[in-house]
């Protein structure tokens, strides 16, 4: 590091130092708001998160102020270094926290660690500024001016943050932008120093940090892709990794969404459309749907619809993940969605792999609801093969019926009709239908039974989407979704996974 600048240089910097009080106050508050918002996004319970983040941050500022007494000389150089450090740590904090969220065992450690670090550095700023300005201003004037700029900065930050920054830039870009403001203060001060007092090391560090922040600002989208949780459009209120999958719940207003491995499973706004369409065309075609089997559907929403049929005596639900059925069976936030169906006395929950369970199963059911995840990989693809459908056919009672959720006939028509072709190869009759579920798009289902599948259907009362007329209309396929010949999906060819992948990547561009 170079020699300390002479006292007269500091004197010349007076106005810019006062202005920097405004900037550092704005930045400081923005980092605090970023941490608080991120914590409530990622951990839920925003009151607790904001309280603890603000408390920790203020305490850390106190530590910074206390530590400032340890600075005995070179206040300007230390101030500049602190600015550069805050720019790097604070500016990158939002990106770093997003990236760390699902990569660390306990997210609170990096969260509060960063809050403490940024708070301490910010806490150093004002005492240092005051000491730098102490020879220029009377004590009373000094305190008044610095604190005035400080509080104006805080007001600016608190208004800008919710009204402009978060909606326009998002959290990650906001962080980088304010990091740039911090480093600009440092670089501005360095530029105004007389040549002989230049701090070359600080200058170089400042330029590197500035360049990194600019790169981060423009690369924010790529960073977001790396950060799983930032990819969700709404605040994450629950996230857990089970041995089988990653479960994420988001909530924005009254819209609660479930994601499994980042794939949307339902939106509480329109899931009734999906689940009514999944369940009632099948159950309404069975004379007496007493025994029902559900494969998948651990969220219990299909169960809720099945239980609307008065004749249902016993439902067996087979879902792989005990964490899913536990969550949706017990959480006070989620049970209102499925009306507590998972704990209904008629329901038996079995946590097992559906294929393995079905192969061993020897019972028959009046209705089977097959609600597996989309065939996005070869492991899940096995659940859509001829071999599985042969086992399924054994599980359908002679007068029974099954329904299979079969991806979108609009986005992936070959994939959709492959499911029908494969069910038919297993000796079943089929009828396809589709419904519009806004959060999914045009969605497809296929009925399958041993005999012909008729038009007559009995719908239970209390449905929000299906009426006899709309139900009948679902079976009409416009030309762009019309039936087409496909191969049979077998364990040894997995044509469905390939068709699904090709069609969806084309559909989504």
């Amino acid at each position: 590091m170079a020699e300390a600048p002479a006292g007269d240089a500091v004197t010349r910097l007076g106005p810019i130092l006062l202005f920097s009080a405004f900037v550092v106050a704005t930045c400081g508050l923005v980092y605090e708001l970023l941490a608080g918002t991120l914590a409530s996004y990622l951990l839920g319970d925003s009151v607790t998160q904001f309280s603890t983040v603000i408390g920790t941050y203020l305490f850390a500022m106190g530590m910074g102020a206390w530590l400032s007494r340890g600075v005995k000389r070179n206040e300007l150089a230390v101030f500049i270094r602190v600015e550069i450090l805050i720019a790097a740590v604070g500016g990158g904090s939002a990106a770093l926290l997003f990236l760390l969220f699902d990569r660390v065992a306990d997210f609170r450690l990096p969260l509060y660690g960063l809050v403490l670090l940024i708070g301490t550095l910010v806490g150093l700023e004002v005492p240092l500024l005051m000491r730098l300005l102490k020879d220029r201003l009377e004590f009373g004037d000094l305190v008044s001016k610095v604190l005035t700029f400080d509080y104006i900065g805080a007001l600016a930050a608190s208004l800008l943050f919710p009204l402009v920054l978060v909606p326009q830039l998002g959290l990650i870009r906001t962080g980088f932008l304010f990091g740039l403001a911090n480093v600009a203060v440092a670089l501005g001060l360095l530029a105004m120093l007389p040549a002989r007092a230049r701090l070359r090391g600080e200058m170089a560090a400042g330029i590197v940090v500035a360049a990194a922040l600019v790169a981060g600002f423009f690369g924010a989208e790529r960073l977001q892709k790396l950060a799983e949780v930032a990819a969700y459009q709404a605040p994450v209120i629950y996230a857990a990794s089970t041995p089988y999958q990653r479960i994420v719940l988001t909530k924005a207003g009254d819209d609660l969404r479930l994601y499994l491995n980042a794939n949307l499973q339902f939106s509480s706004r329109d899931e009734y459309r999906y689940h009514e369409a999944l369940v009632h065309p099948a159950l309404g075609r069975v004379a007496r749907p007493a025994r029902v089997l559900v494969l998948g559907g651990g969220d219990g929403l299909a169960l809720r619809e099945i239980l609307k049929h008065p004749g249902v005596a016993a439902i067996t639900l087979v879902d792989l993940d005990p964490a899913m059925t536990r969550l949706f069976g017990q959480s006070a936030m989620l049970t209102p969605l499925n009306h507590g169906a998972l704990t209904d006395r008629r329901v038996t929950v079995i946590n097992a792999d559906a294929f393995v369970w079905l192969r061993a199963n020897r019972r028959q059911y009046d209705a089977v609801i097959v609600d597996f995840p989309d065939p996005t990989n070869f492991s899940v693809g096995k659940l859509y093969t001829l071999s599985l459908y042969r086992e399924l056919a054994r599980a359908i009672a002679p007068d029974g019926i099954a329904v299979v959720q079969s991806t979108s006939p609009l986005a992936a028509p070959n994939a959709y009709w492959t499911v029908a072709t494969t069910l038919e190869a297993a000796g079943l009759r089929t009828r396809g239908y589709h419904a519009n579920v806004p959060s999914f798009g045009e969605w497809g289902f296929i009925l399958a039974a041993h005999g012909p599948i008729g038009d007559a259907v009995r719908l239970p009362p209390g449905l929000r989407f299906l009426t006899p007329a709309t139900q009948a209309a679902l079976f009409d396929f416009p030309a762009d979704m019309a039936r087409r010949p496909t191969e049979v999906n077998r364990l040894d060819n997995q044509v469905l996974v390939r068709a699904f992948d090709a069609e969806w990547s084309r559909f989504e561009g």
Partner: protein
Amino acid sequence: MPGTLGGADMARGHLLRRPFGDAAPAETRRTGIAILGGGVAGLAAAWTLAEAGYRDFRLLELEDRSGGNARSRRNAISAYPLGAHYLPIPNAEAVGVRHLLDRLGIITGWQGGKPVFDPYQLVSDPDERLLRLGRWQEGLVPNVALGRADREQIDRFFARMAAFGAMTGHDGRPAFAIPMELSSRDPELLALDGRSWTAWLDAHGYTSADLRAHIRYVCRDEYGTEPGDVSAWTGVHYFAGRRGDAAGDGDQVLSWPGGNGHLAEAMAARVAGHIDSGHVVGAVKATGDGVVIDALDAPGRRRVRIVADAAIVAMPRFVAAHVVAGWAGSAAGFSYAPWVVANASVDRLPGGRGAALAWDNVSATSNSLGYVVATHQGLASVGGPSVLTWYLPLSELAPAKARALLQARPLADWQRIVHDDLVAMNPDLQGAISRIDVWRWGHAMVRPVPGFIWGPERQAAARFAPPLFAAHSDLSGISIFEEAHYRGTLAAEAAMRHAGFAHHSLLAA
């Protein structure tokens, strides 16, 4: 790293080097037909006797468990193979193997004279992938980022091999058959046996490095031997001999978590009461009216004498030459390829850039043959822990040198080699490998060196010399299940004829 170092019981095997001396046997047993050796050939012989209703036979096996190099083991995660791990859908002429598969329920029915295979036992898609130029591609033949000349040569080569595959000799037999004994004896085809595979490829302009790399992979995988050390007839046989005959796609393979151990165990179970394991056969002597066999009952630590009407010598030729009186010189010309097979337990499945995890995963840059996923045929829709079976033929060294290396190298060194090779292929396996069990095969396969298959030594060794009937894949010069099974069946039927036991031939079409 936990793990074990295993291999053929060398201590027991080397007992053969010391003659038994003249001590009298503690027990003399009488039997109709003695089967010496419980590999696939011996088990097939036993199965054939049992199928014919012939009950007066014993099978003597050196090891504690029968199965030869089709043996398997099991740990908490999965069964896994110690050697051979798959069986291609057999050709129509492989009548004996088809009979076996039919009886085991692997063939579930027949359509238009063609067998229907159980879909759960056909290898699930995706079956193969190749790591080349930093990315996994589907299939083992290079097909991505190929130069024009490479692509042209690859196409020309496979067209040429297909032509060989469709060819019939002047004697009306297929040019290349499985079992090989049924191949055409056209002199111009047999002439291929006189030169090396490399010389033939060079002479026909197949110089593309990508093509040659694939051919070398196949040659080492199939014969444990470099292309320069096998005959052109054998080289072509791999590509032209397979005409899998099935009601559906015949170009598929059957596999099980324990590899061909599944078939060996099924055959052994059928004849369980006839197997004497842990029996070291020390001397076999044909007498005027039968065979006298002196053996060491290793678990009982005593000498036993078996007096039989006939013996099926189902041991590898290098062992048979040691113990059968008068056969001392008969192993001339037989050489054997040493292999290492390692089973790595992993707590998560490997991934990688490009094509998804397959059953068989090969790297173009590794000298190993890659790895096979033991749990691939499982029906779980979410990948969990697995066992990866890793193969390395020590083909670059002369066999004797390689065997010395095999004995000298300690477990930890092998584990490091296996670990580093797996991690080089799949960096995501770093930290996921919990144990590596290494199995050494000193004499894994007979080597079809130029001139061996259609030369006098093999043909003389294969000839029956009642009351001794030789049976081993060695006698075909190709170490595959179908050849071992054919030799065992053929010998068993000849022995029954010798014994005057009427039976229906399993080899009759």
